[in-house]
């Protein structure tokens, strides 16, 4: 009896899951989003999803796309896990009938999704945050893009920054994933080219309680500064605090994952004047400021997390491409993505969807001044962003200068 009940419950749930998610399927343009809402990256997924929702709102408020169709976003929780992520992506493609995907966050999910789901199904995928160099060389028939620069780009700038700050020696502590690894390699190469010495390069496991022994190892040989490659939530803040508390380091250089006022809370006086790098907008663009304003109107204070802006941009440029293609077919969207954006195109800001539509209708190319800076793809689908240098002043983060690629 009990067995029967359980079996029936399970089947009903299975059925519901298949139908409910695909039930409201009329006349909309659907984009799937693959964001982690549970698991290791849960604290990012919620906000990156907000980024996509903001883009959806702007587009729908300004009349939708493809002649008035609404943009519909369908999200699947990847659980920060490839097994669940790949399954979710296939559900988006097959059951929900989405036309393109924004996501996933970590390369560990993005790549298997691309290889086993979206590329074979000819669905365009734009990752807002996967920085792995593997994505560049993926045999993807051009269906995989990203709105975040490959980590090698930022690494060069960070390496230069360290040298420019007259540091002769540098210790690096990086988060042990593909993002951290990539940046670390690039920084070492650049810094050593500039004549500096990297005294230690130490990977750390995220979410551990103590990083004192890593710090101690890094501090050996008295390097001039610590270059920290981490996210705020997986140990970055803990490392900064423990480094300060124990007097291991006084000089820091940060990367984009730490570009957040959160890192200075309670330790303002120690971090005053420290610098960091992060992908940013080209000179003249006002995307980031505008984005912060719009986000805060919609969701309240913008959290100091990366990739919210790139998620917004990914959604926006997908919409641009669909509008340009005049179709929701994967190959058409793919081709349109390459055509619609140009460095010397007409400027479109992030709240100017109507203007964009008009320009596309007029056959103009667009220079999209995105939330994370101008979005341009090179021929392998990587974003050709710019890297900015930021600085902590009075406990706040201010942009200092921009290094164009």
């Amino acid at each position, binding site marked *: 009896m*009990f*067995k029967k009940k*359980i*079996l029936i419950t*399970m089947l009903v*749930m*299975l059925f*519901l*899951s*298949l*139908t*409910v*998610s*695909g*039930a409201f*399927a009329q006349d909309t343009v659907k984009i799937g989003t693959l964001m982690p*809402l*549970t698991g290791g990256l*849960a604290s990012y*997924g*919620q906000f990156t*999803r*907000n980024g996509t*929702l903001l883009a959806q709102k702007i587009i729908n408020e300004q009349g939708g796309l493809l002649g008035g169709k609404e943009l519909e976003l*369908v*999200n*699947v*929780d990847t*659980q920060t*896990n*490839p*097994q*669940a992520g*790949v*399954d*979710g992506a*296939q*559900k988006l*493609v*097959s*059951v*929900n*009938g989405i036309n393109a995907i924004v996501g996933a966050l970590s*390369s*560990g*999910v993005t*790549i*298997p999704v691309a*290889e086993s789901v979206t590329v*074979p199904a000819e669905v365009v995928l734009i990752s807002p945050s996967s920085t792995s*160099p*593997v994505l560049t060389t*993926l045999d993807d028939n051009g269906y995989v893009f990203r709105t975040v620069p490959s980590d090698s780009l930022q690494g060069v700038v960070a390496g230069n920054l360290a040298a420019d700050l007259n540091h002769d020696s540098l210790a690096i502590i990086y988060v*042990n*994933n*593909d993002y*951290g*690894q*990539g940046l670390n390699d690039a920084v070492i190469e650049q810094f050593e080219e500039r004549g500096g010495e990297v005294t230690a390069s130490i*990977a750390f496991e995220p979410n551990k309680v103590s990083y004192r022994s890593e710090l101690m190892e890094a501090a050996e040989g008295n390097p001039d500064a610590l270059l920290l490659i981490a996210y705020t939530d997986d140990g970055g803040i803990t490392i900064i605090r423990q480094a300060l508390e124990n007097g291991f380091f006084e000089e820091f250089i940060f990367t984009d994952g730490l570009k957040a006022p959160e890192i200075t809370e309670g330790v303002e006086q120690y971090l005053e004047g420290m610098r960091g790098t992060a992908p940013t907008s080209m000179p003249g663009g006002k995307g980031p400021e505008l984005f912060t304003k719009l986000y805060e109107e919609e969701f309240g204070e913008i959290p100091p997390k990366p990739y919210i802006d790139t998620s917004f941009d990914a959604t926006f440029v997908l919409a641009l491409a669909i509008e340009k293609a005049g179709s929701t077919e994967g190959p058409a969207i793919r081709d349109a993505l390459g055509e619609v954006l140009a460095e010397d195109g007409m400027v479109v800001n992030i709240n100017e969807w109507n203007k964009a539509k008009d320009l596309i209708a007029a056959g103009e190319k667009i220079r999209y001044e995105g939330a994370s800076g101008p979005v341009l793809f090179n021929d392998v689908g990587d974003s050709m962003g710019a890297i900015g240098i930021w600085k902590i002043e009075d406990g706040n983060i201010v942009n200092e200068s921009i290094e164009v690629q």
Partner: protein
Amino acid sequence: MTFAGVFSYLVFFLIFAGIYAVMTLALNMQRGFAGLFNIGIAGFWAVGAYTSAIMTKGPSPDHLGGFGMPFIIGLLAAGIISSLLAFLVGIPTIRLREDYLGIATIGIAEIIRLVIKNEAWLTNGVRGISAIPKPLAGSFGSNYNLFFLMIVVLVIALFYYLSEKGINSPWGRILRAIREDEEVVKAVGKNVVRYRMEAFVLGAFMMGVGGGLYAHFTSFISPEAFKPMQATFLVWIMLIIGGSANNFGSIVGAFLTWGIWTGTEFLTGMLPAAYTTQAAAIRVILIGVFLEIILLNRPEGLFGEKKYSSVSTADR
């Protein structure tokens, strides 16, 4: 939602659930038939996946490789290396009390994950191995997944057949007898440790092959895929829900549980965006509650233990 769409998702779903079913069958061999408590499935899964990937890929500067072996050899190697690992783990631990073996295996699985993460020369570390060849890729067009499903079903069928045949044979008779009373088996001259070890190694072989299937299907593996929750405990939940010591129940348990695990996604999809994080948490809570209800009400699983026998009574 089109029929074709649902069908293609269904195929996809079945591939994934099928890979889990391979794991569950393997665990059933270890746990259900031999009473071995392995909570390091993730380790064997990872070793299988990486072995097959390294064996079959062409040369790559990022990690060990360049053997370019065919798919089948990759799978076999995955099974063999995974069994070898089981053998080494088993030597010191298989004699111990069952929960000691469990804690040892979970420790080994975590060590394996750390090695994969940090020994980049071997595994490309955290960046993972990409472009793992799919067997006969490009030959079936849009029906490729259907073809892959066939492979998975074939593997399940093979393992099911071998497992059933094994457990109903004199070999299985000894294994079942060990579970009933070890002393008796020793007293009639059977080497209990040897049979335990064989079941452990055989289960690990199946897990390795399952790992290989996973690697070739997703074409990309990285340490992220082999965390204890999704790669070990989920398999246990499947086995317990389906019913330990029952091969058929194990398979059904895998399909149903994977259905619930991914299927309850609709909960998240239905709620307003502001609540999605909460919904995701609630979903996992519900899965937990569901598991507890089953454990409290039906600890032997949906199908319970099956009666296996080496003797057919018909001919007497």
